[in-house]
């Protein structure tokens, strides 16, 4: 019998609220199946199961907030006998809502579970909440129809701010960061990208972020000290190269879900993953493995951002690579000054796991790969 527990979806998470069971006692589950939806400070997360088996008992009722590590359900092997069911009251119905909608609902005193969602996957959007507010008039005080915790939860934004604050404080306090930057000539990369996008179908179109992620991911093979976790005074190498892709949420806040095995995916697949993760981060429907798995983080400020990004490493990771805005700059090439598109790449790395010399070589490897986009 396995115990399925409230997962830790990042160093900053202390508790989560069970929103929905997607599998029920008696249902067969396979590793990777989504078994439940959990509401966290980072929005609603779809939680995957890690063993094959059959759902035995659901222990925590929907609507309950429990600390990380709490047993939510038990999973038995197919040949094990079923346990007596617990009388868990399943009261709340499916509530999927974008973070901004939850925040607005809290402001307006609206119960999001009473709002009809029109967003992706039936998610409740901010507009749905506004519409519900305008048609419903003032909401009755504390509907309390569900087994929700009695204590009011903080609004999503302030909760997420607190979570980011906690993780980054820990990062700054515990990780002896060192920083290195290098300015990378993107002339070849941008020419290649433009030519490729002109001929590609829209679903095959690439943005520079895909090249950055791939360059970082493929460079890591020679730099295992940049990929993994610092736990109990030792470096644990990452189980793969799962690149966390920092996504700023427009309502405020930040998530960095993983592009899994980015070193083995082609550029088109990486780009599709980034598009999908971004859309789902905005809609509040990321999966537990995406939030818990990153072994290194890449942050790209995009074309409206600043010239460079000196990030704070998310513990227990040991490195973060920041890319600034791509700008045209005069550059000396073969003794002549020419105008070239360039990007400043910044490595923030954990001095307990590596030294500046290694970091410099890592950045140089990333730079080299970006000179040959056609073989990335």
């Amino acid at each position: 019998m396995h115990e399925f527990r409230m997962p830790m979806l990042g160093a900053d998470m202390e508790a989560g609220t069970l929103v929905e069971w997607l599998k029920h006692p008696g249902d067969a589950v396979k590793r990777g199946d989504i078994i439940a939806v959990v509401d966290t400070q980072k929005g609603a997360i779809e939680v995957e199961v890690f063993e094959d088996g059959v759902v035995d008992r659901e222990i925590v009722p929907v609507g309950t907030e429990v600390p990380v590590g709490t047993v939510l359900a038990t999973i038995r092997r197919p040949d094990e006998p079923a346990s007596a069911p617990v009388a868990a009251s399943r009261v709340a119905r499916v509530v999927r809502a974008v973070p901004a909608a939850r925040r607005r609902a809290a402001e307006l005193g609206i119960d999001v579970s009473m709002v009809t969602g029109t967003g992706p996957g039936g998610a409740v959007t901010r507009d749905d909440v506004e519409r519900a507010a305008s048609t419903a008039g003032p909401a009755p005080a504390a509907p309390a129809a569900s087994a929700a915790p009695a204590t009011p939860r903080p609004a999503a934004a302030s909760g997420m701010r607190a979570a980011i604050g906690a993780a980054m404080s820990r990062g700054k306090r515990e990780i002896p960061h060192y920083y290195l930057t290098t300015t990378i000539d993107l002339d070849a990369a941008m020419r290649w990208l433009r030519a490729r996008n002109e001929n590609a179908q829209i679903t095959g179109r690439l943005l520079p972020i895909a090249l950055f992620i791939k360059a970082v991911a493929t460079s890591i093979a020679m730099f295992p000290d940049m990929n993994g976790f610092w736990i109990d005074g030792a470096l644990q190498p990452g189980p793969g190269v799962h690149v966390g892709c920092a996504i700023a949420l427009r309502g405020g806040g930040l998530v960095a879900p993983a592009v899994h095995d980015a070193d083995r995916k082609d550029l088109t697949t990486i780009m599709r993953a980034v598009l999908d993760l971004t859309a789902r981060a905005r809609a509040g429907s990321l999966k537990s493995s995406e939030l818990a798995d990153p072994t290194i983080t890449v942050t790209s400020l995009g074309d409206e951002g600043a010239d460079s990004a000196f990030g704070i490493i998310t513990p227990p990771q040991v490195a973060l690579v920041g890319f600034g805005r791509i700008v045209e700059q005069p550059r000396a090439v073969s003794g002549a000054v020419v105008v070239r598109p360039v990007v400043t790449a910044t490595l923030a790395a954990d001095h307990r796991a590596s030294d500046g010399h290694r970091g410099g070589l890592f950045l140089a490897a990333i730079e080299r790969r970006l000179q040959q986009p056609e073989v990335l």
Partner: protein
Amino acid sequence: MTPAEIQTVVIGALTRIAPEVPPASIQPGVPLREQFDLDSVDFLNFMVALHERLGIEVPEADYAQVATVDRAVAYLAAKLAARAAAASGGTTMVGTERGR
């Protein structure tokens, strides 16, 4: 499709990639990236959503022509009209040939 129908599709695509945006607040003449802080990833998702709904691929070179809701509606209306004309032209020719 009428311009009003195209506008509904454009706004639907936009709210799918930016679910936190109240559709009623969209100003049709103001650049979307400015209005909603869309980054290049969001914008590509927006183009993919338009392609899924209308079957029209907006090349990168034409992004300036779809920068606002109004401009996007005008651009897409023109592309849809051109496609319809090409399709009906093709059908007519086939019909004429058969007639002969």
